[in-house]
């Protein structure tokens, strides 16, 4: 039974093992964070709207980039799998994420002056991201996700209590863990490529 469970665990974690999704998602977060920060520093409404559009565009583009990279790098080396469809459709999940973003922005705007509410809300939001990541790290047995979760929480605490302006906190909490994900993902990809050299052209039966 243990052997069955181990085999299944490896299968579930396969799509995360090459580091490609991490690099792309991390890169997207760094970009979103930097554009957000620029929008705040320059104090431009145009840049703020652009950063919002940027967020959604990168979320969609990232999926395509990951798929393209996996077709070129991963699948010829260690094969292709397709995970079962998630219970919620992609459209519904997108709508849910959009709704959460809108609620977050609305609440933060409504309680703009209330520093304590802002801090608490922000930290709860960070935990909502970090805890599932930590759970993913434990379930998939990929410890580098714990590093990203830890960096996310640490960054959130530093920006919250370290005097960083409220309007810039999210930008930092995206950019720094994003950069961490790029680093850990690159390390994972290097290890993966070392372990699985490029196959022959006619590898498929």
């Amino acid at each position, binding site marked *: 039974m243990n052997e069955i469970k181990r085999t299944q665990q490896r299968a579930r974690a396969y799509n995360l093992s090459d580091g490609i999704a991490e690099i792309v998602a991390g890169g997207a977060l760094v970009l979103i964070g930097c554009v957000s920060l620029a929008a705040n520093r320059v104090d431009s409404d145009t840049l703020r709207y652009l950063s919002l559009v940027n967020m959604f565009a990168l979320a969609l583009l990232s999926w395509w980039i990951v798929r393209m990279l996996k077709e070129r790098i991963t*699948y010829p080396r260690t094969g292709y*799998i397709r995970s079962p469809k998630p219970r919620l459709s992609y459209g519904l999940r997108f709508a849910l994420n959009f709704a959460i973003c809108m609620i977050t922005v609305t609440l933060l705007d409504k309680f703009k002056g209330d520093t304590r509410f802002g801090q608490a809300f922000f930290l709860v939001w960070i935990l909502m991201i970090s805890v599932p990541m930590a759970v993913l790290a434990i379930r998939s047995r990929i410890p580098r996700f714990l590093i990203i979760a830890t960096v996310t929480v640490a960054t959130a605490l530093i920006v919250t209590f370290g005097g960083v302006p409220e309007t810039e906190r999210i930008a930092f909490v995206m950019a720094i863990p994003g950069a961490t994900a790029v680093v850990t993902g690159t390390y994972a990809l290097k290890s993966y490529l070392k372990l699985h050299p490029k196959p022959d052209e006619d590898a498929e039966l």
Partner: protein
Amino acid sequence: MSFEFSSDPDRVIHEPARLKIMSMLSVLDCADFIYLMGETGLTRGNLSVQLRRLEDAHYIMVSKEFKGRTPRTIASMTQQGKKAFKAYRKYLARLLKATS
């Protein structure tokens, strides 16, 4: 939960390589030949034989698709295969409980 020691496990699934294939396909929508070869450690010929055995038992479905000019052999579990694997797991659980 009683266990009949005279009962046999599903011999199609019970073989180690086929058990690994079924274990993987039970948590995936599908997997290709290269992935299955890497995970089972079997040679191409041997893996083809095991996949054919599972296909003959109607536990998996094997299809070929093309990604550009590269052919890809994909295996996925059928409903019958899912039921059989579930029954096999129950058999193992009862056996472990009876002998613990």
